[in-house]
């Protein structure tokens, strides 16, 4: 089945098939409603047929301790002590943010290994992945993981297989408190506004939506009670952007460098055409002093039968 809704394709300089128009979707994670039950982690593992290795306890509720090639979403628990001494338990469901301007896609050198659909989902095609890890280098959120088994990069797909047939992602379906909801990006922003108004009315004056402009907005958004300090939530970047080093590495410099290499080759060719080669004159190529008289090699004799 041809895919006709690809708006960006890694390592591809011409437009991908993008004629099909679909609405942008978003997953909204309301951190203030999350109870940290990890049902979303289980649902993700169930739907995607992933079975991570059983880890060990690190003294926190985080389990597994980090995203892996087999765990595309993890709950991150932060104990935050407020200025007044109150303790807040901040629980954030971590995973791919599905950036509108994805750093992974920008960094990927393999054509079509990373695609962005018109609905905003950024998806990895592992059959085209070469395992270089450049997506890890490009991601502002530290999300992609290279599998130690097959050396391919994996991350949350936003259940692109479910969404493409009109279903919500598995984590959304399973969330018992409706902390995770899914719909069109517009609807999710509107829903977030209501949630933020509610939080503000209950004393969270800095409540807000995390949909960072630095990466063009994201298709996974958070409602945060402390939107002024996203980094409180287990290091969620305050101002995520594609690193300037990645932009420089993968930006205009590459075509310019190619041009310069081509120009160097052409420069050489035309130098040869216009100035020509440097040759050592052949006739002067005998610096050793030759004897003035011609000496015949006694081994070589000429025989002329006409001579007596």
């Amino acid at each position, binding site marked *: 089945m041809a895919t006709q809704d690809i708006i960006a394709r890694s390592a591809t300089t011409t437009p991908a098939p993008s004629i099909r128009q679909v609405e942008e979707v978003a997953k909204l994670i309301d951190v203030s409603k999350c109870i940290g039950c990890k049902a979303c982690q289980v649902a993700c593992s169930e739907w995607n047929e992933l079975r991570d290795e059983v880890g060990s306890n690190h003294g926190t509720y985080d389990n597994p301790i980090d995203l892996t090639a087999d765990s595309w979403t993890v709950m991150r628990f932060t104990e935050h002590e407020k200025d007044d001494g109150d303790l807040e338990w901040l629980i954030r469901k971590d995973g791919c943010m599905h950036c509108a301007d994805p750093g992974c896609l920008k960094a990927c050198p*393999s054509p079509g290994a990373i695609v962005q659909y018109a609905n905003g989902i950024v998806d990895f095609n592992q059959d085209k992945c070469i395992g270089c890890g450049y997506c890890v*280098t490009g991601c502002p959120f530290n999300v992609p993981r*290279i599998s130690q088994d097959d050396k391919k990069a994996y991350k949350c797909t936003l259940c692109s297989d479910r969404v493409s047939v009109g279903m919500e992602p598995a984590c959304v379906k399973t969330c018992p408190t409706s902390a995770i909801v899914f719909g069109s990006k517009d609807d999710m922003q509107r829903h977030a506004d209501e949630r933020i108004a509610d939080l503000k009315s209950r004393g969270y004056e800095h409540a807000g939506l995390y949909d960072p402009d630095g990466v063009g907005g994201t298709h996974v958004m958070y409602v945060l009670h402390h939107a002024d300090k996203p980094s409180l939530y287990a290091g969620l970047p305050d101002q995520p952007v594609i690193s300037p080093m990645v932009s420089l590495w993968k930006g205009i*410099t590459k075509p310019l460098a190619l041009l310069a290499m081509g120009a160097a080759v052409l420069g050489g060719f035309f*130098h040869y055409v216009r100035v020509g080669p*440097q040759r050592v004159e052949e006739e*002067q190529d005998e610096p050793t002093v030759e004897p003035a008289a011609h000496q015949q090699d006694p081994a070589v004799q000429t025989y002329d039968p006409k001579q007596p």
Partner: protein
Amino acid sequence: MKQDEIQRYNANERSNHWAVAILFILAGLSGLALFHPALFWLSNLFGGGPWTRILHPFLGVAMFVLFLGLVFRFWSANYFSGNDGLWLKNIGKVMRNQEDGVPPIGKYNPGQKLLFWALLVSMLVLLVSGIVIWREYFSHLFGIDVIRLAALAHAFAAFVLVLAIIVHVYAAIWIKGSFGAMLSGKVSHRWARKHHELWYREVTDRKRD
């Protein structure tokens, strides 16, 4: 050896040079495959994208290790000295194949010396940055900012290296006799006197002693 020829490179030096050259071509083509989408098709030469990713770092390390052999062999002949400044001032004449006013130089002209040092620096940068971005074995030892900087430095140093080698190869095509010098090891007296007069005198004086 014919009487009118001078040995410029011995068999070990030539073999070392060409081993590095072959590895440069392999590492260069596999690297260019990942450098820009327009060149990704080069990955087919290595058996596809994953094989290109697997082979490239090994090819690069092998190139660096063998290049060290050339560095030790030719190190002392590549110090800048004597007429080098004057020669560089007359680089325009050199480029136009004019000889008046171009001072005599030793075994290597300043252009070749610049190439030597450019190759050494770019290969050092490539080695260090390449290890940092070698995801399979080493990247987990480094922070993300170091990896990003290394990726950028690796691409830049590769660009410098490729440009330097383009110049190097063209110079070998342009200056007749130099390609043969690295292939057979020998140059004519006339060639040596024309292109590397101080080296020529040194070699012939040594012979006379």
